[in-house]
Every structure is written in structure tokens, then in C-alpha cells.
């Protein structure tokens, strides 16, 4: 017993900058508390709106954005396209495996800074030329992190803290270009990197079901969305289906995002297209390949974006454009492994 109590002793230590990167968002937990006290909606009232209204009202040029899902899985495509249509500018982004979402925002020239872990590749699908160029040319300012570091930065914020100790990045150039601080454990002396809490201005998450107040349930992996929803100052939810409040109350264990975290909720069927939505539809690999191919020629890309984003009124217009329900049904068959 004594052995461990001995760990309680006064120590003088030095906190040292562990990297030369930038901190794009305010990690201060007290300022975040005041924001949450004064700005977070406590009223359990209807928050349904349209994607264009939500983007107009809740996303400002210069904001720092956190996008839910994982690259091309359960992403809020409708909101991302609308941000491009509305020409949002100078946005910051949390890039823990942001793939197609990053690609969309880069195509719209919306981003000028990024906390970066994985953004220029689309995993097995290959690399995005425009994403690479944007970073190689310095158009987008970057600070290095890892997927774990970014998810733990969200968690620090979700817990109401200003930092989190982590054991990744240590000793590497990833650390050197991060904005972490070197510290040690007050009890054991174990070396840690302290990563700053990440409170995005806006979080955008696509879910399986939500009620009109914004109580949300997600089926399958959460990725980092439980923490992102809590860390974000403003939160936009798109949902495959709006359901009655009693459907949420029937299985409260499944609720990952309670209404008081949510500022706007919009029903967007197939809202993760061309991304995968677990149990609903698989990713449209042909469409993602076409997009990557179009990036090889500026004119092809311009035409592709005109056809799929600028030239359509809204997300349903996009779905019509890519083949409508016939195509979407094929993707549902793929997801559910129905042989046709």
C-alpha cells in the first residue's frame, strides 16, 4: 500500500513545446463552459430546417469544422456540397481520416488550414490530386497529428477539459510538426504529450435516426462522433430518417447524441452518398472513381463539379443526377449482400 502512496510527492517539472505547429482553436475549458452555458440550446423544441438554411445560419467563413463519420463512411455529404455551393471560405478542418469529405471541401476551395492526420488519400481507392496539390502548394496550412491524437483532442473537449495526456507521436517528426506539449505524469513520471482540447466551431454529423428535437441514434461504429458532438460549439445533424420522439425513448440506451447538443436537424435520405451508410447502402465506388479521374484534368473536374454540385439545386438533385433510386437500390443490394 505504502509503495503507491509514496508517489505523492512535490516535484518541479518543465512543460516544453513538443512541436512547432499551430493551434487553430481555443483549448480553454472555461471559455468553452461560458459558450455552452450561454449559447447551447436547452429548449427541447423542433429544430428541423433545410440544409441550405443550416449552412447559411450556422457555418461562417473562417469557422473551424469537424466532420463526422470516417472518410467515405457515414459522412454528411449534403451539408458538404451545400458549403461548396454557398462558397464558404477560409475554413479550418479536423483531418482525422477525412477522405471524400476533404476532397469535396478542397474542390470548393473552402479550406485554408487543417489539423492533419490523413486527408489526401482515399484509402484503397488512391490519392486525390487536388488534395495533394492544395497541401504541396501551401494553399492549406497544416499542423500534424494522428487519428488517435485528434480523437483524444475531441475527447478532452467532450470531457470539459483543456488538454489530454497521450502516448502517441512521441519521438517522431509527427510530434515535431504538431502543437503538443511535453509533460510528465504527476505520480509515475511517465512521459506524455499533452494535446490541446479541440472545440470545433461547427460539428456536422450524419446519423441513422433522429427526432425533430435532435436526439440521435447511430447504428454500427461511432468513429469519433460521440466526442465530436460534445466538443462542437454548434452541431448540424443530417439523418437518414426523422422518427417520432417515442421511437428514441423506446431504446434510450442507443441514444448517442441528446437534443441539447444539437442546433439543427435535417432529414436527408441517402445522405452519406457516395459514402457507405452501414445497414443502408454501400459506397458508390464507380462515382468515387469518376471523381478521382476527373481530377486529372481541370476542365473535366469543373464539368464534374458543375454536373454534380453547382448545377443541382440540392442533394436530391444530386441523387437524381447520379442515377436516382435505380442506382441507390443497387447500392442497397450491395450493402445487404443481396445477389441480383
Amino acid at each position, binding site marked *: 500500500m505504502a509503495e503507491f502512496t509514496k508517489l505523492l510527492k512535490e516535484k518541479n517539472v518543465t512543460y516544453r513545446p513538443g512541436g512547432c505547429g499551430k493551434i487553430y482553436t481555443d483549448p480553454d475549458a472555461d471559455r468553452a463552459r461560458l459558450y455552452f452555458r450561454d449559447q447551447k440550446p436547452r429548449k427541447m423544441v423542433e429544430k428541423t430546417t433545410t440544409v441550405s438554411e443550416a449552412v447559411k445560419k450556422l457555418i461562417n467563413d473562417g469557422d473551424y469544422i469537424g466532420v463526422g463519420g470516417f472518410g467515405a463512411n457515414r459522412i454528411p455529404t449534403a451539408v458538404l456540397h451545400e458549403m461548396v455551393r454557398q462558397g464558404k471560405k477560409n475554413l479550418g478542418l479536423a483531418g482525422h481520416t477525412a477522405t471524400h469529405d476533404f476532397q469535396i471541401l478542397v474542390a470548393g476551395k473552402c479550406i485554408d488550414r487543417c489539423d492533419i492526420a490523413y486527408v489526401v488519400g482515399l484509402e484503397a481507392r488512391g490519392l486525390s490530386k487536388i488534395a495533394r496539390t492544395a497541401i504541396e502548394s501551401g494553399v492549406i496550412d497544416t499542423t500534424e497529428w494522428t487519428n488517435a491524437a485528434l480523437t483524444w483532442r475531441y475527447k478532452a473537449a467532450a470531457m470539459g477539459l483543456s488538454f489530454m495526456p497521450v502516448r502517441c507521436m512521441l519521438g517522431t517528426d509527427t510530434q515535431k510538426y504538431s502543437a503538443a506539449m511535453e509533460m510528465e505524469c504527476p505520480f509515475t513520471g511517465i512521459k506524455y504529450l499533452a494535446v490541446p482540447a479541440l472545440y470545433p466551431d461547427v460539428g456536422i454529423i450524419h446519423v441513422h435516426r433522429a427526432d425533430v428535437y435532435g436526439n440521435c441514434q447511430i447504428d454500427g*461504429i461511432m468513429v469519433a462522433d460521440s466526442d465530436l458532438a460534445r466538443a462542437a460549439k454548434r452541431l448540424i445533424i443530417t439523418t437518414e430518417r426523422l422518427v417520432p420522439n417515442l421511437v428514441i425513448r423506446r431504446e434510450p440506451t442507443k441514444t448517442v447524441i441528446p437534443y441539447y447538443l444539437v442546433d439543427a436537424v435535417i432529414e436527408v435520405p441517402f445522405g452519406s452518398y457516395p459514402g457507405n451508410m452501414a*445497414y443502408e447502402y454501400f459506397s458508390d465506388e464507380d462515382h468515387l472513381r469518376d471523381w478521382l479521374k476527373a481530377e486529372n484534368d481541370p476542365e473535366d473536374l469543373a464539368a464534374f463539379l458543375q454536373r454534380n454540385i453547382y448545377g443541382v439545386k440540392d442533394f436530391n438533385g444530386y441523387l437524381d443526377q447520379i442515377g436516382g433510386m435505380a442506382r441507390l437500390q443497387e447500392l442497397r443490394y450491395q450493402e445487404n449482400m443481396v445477389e441480383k
Partner: protein
Amino acid sequence: MDYNDMELMICLASRYLEDDSIVVVGTGAPCAAAMLAQKLYSPRLMIMFEAGGIGPMLPSMPISVGDSRTFYRALAASSMPEIMETCQRGLVDYTFLGGAQIDQYGNINSTMIGKDYKAPKVRLPGSGGANDLGSLCWKTMMITPQDQRRFTEKIDFVTTPGYLTGPGAREEAGLPPGSGPYKVITNLCVIGFDDQTKRMKVESMHPGITKEKIVENTGFELLWAENVTVSDAPKEDELNILRNEVDPYRYIIGRG
């Protein structure tokens, strides 16, 4: 039976994943190796994906480490923090990484080519979870083609820690003691790491590969095991299962 480099590397890698161990894999060759191991050698190999999938009944090769295949009939569909914290807690035995450059201590670069971080010659995909897995899992394995460009004395950017600058360097940096690079499986040989120096040590050369060929495809001095053996070529059942069950559409082995 004939085979290409990718098939060779996947078959060899699959033999190192012992049954009843836990591995976090990415898409591509690592996932193929894990699936092959599960079907042939280690039926209870526990596969995790960094986005949250735990122990799925993989119906086919995932396209993303977060797509729905990664938690199809899984034991648990969890979260990214859950997987990363399971690694940090010391429960994950193996991980599999790739990269554009690797040095003699197993440090990996998957971030950029060039000298200036602010103006890279080429920006690569980046760490994603690679640095986390290479920092926190017990044994890191790598699957990579071997040539002078990739196996280089000085890599442009240390994305993921190998043994850093040598013995004791990981511990000195604060990384969990006892973790680090384990095997590097290339198209030419299987490489381990020397206990004393923590430098790469060739353990077996693939059939038909000479020491000279390996040397001329390596940008630093390799150590050689007492008795360097010849790697067992891919077996017929390995290739059959890999081609017919694991990667029927040749997504991965097609690149070999």
C-alpha cells in the same frame, strides 16, 4: 505454382500472425494477410479496425477501415477512441503498416517526400492511425516492396516510430517499453531486428533471391542472421485461398 510479389508477401506475412492474438490492420495487403491467416492458420485471430470494428465475420475485403464490412456480424461495433485506447492499454499484439520510406531502425515515412515540411515535393497520405499503432501496439510488422528508394539511410520524415535512433531510444522518448518493429516482409526477404543494435537483420531470403540482389536494393547496411534461411515459397493452399476466398477480385494481389 507461380505467384507474384504481392501474393508472396501476403502469404509470408500471414504465417506470422499466431492464433489467439489480437491484430489491428488497415486495408490492402495487411488485411489480406490477416484474412488469409484466419482462414488457414489462426482461426481465432482477432481482427480489429481503427475506426471501431472488432472481430467481424469479414464477408469480403473492406475498401475502408471504416466501411460496414469491418463490423459485419462483429463481436462489437465500437469507436476509434475505443480501438486506440485498447492499443494504449497494451492489449493489441500486432499491427501491420506500410510506407513510402523506411530506415534501418524501422522508422517509417508516410507523410511527405522532400526536405521542407511547408513545401513538400510530394505530400503522402499521412499518419492516419499508423503512428498510433506503431507507438502503442506490441509488435509492428511491415509489408513493403524493397528498393534503394524505399530502404534508405535517412528518411525524409519520421511519421511512425521504429526504434528511432537505436537501443533505448523508444523508451527515452516515452514510448511504452517492450513495443516496436518486429518483422519487415518484402518482395526479396524477411527481415527482423537485432536485439542489441535494433537494426534490421535479414532472416530469410525468398526463393531465387541472392544476397547481392538484396544489398543492391537497400540504401543502408543490413545485418545478417547467423544462418540466413530460404523463405518457404507460398504454398498451393495459401495461394488458392488468397485468390479464391480472400481477394477474388484481385484488388490487392492484382497490384503485385
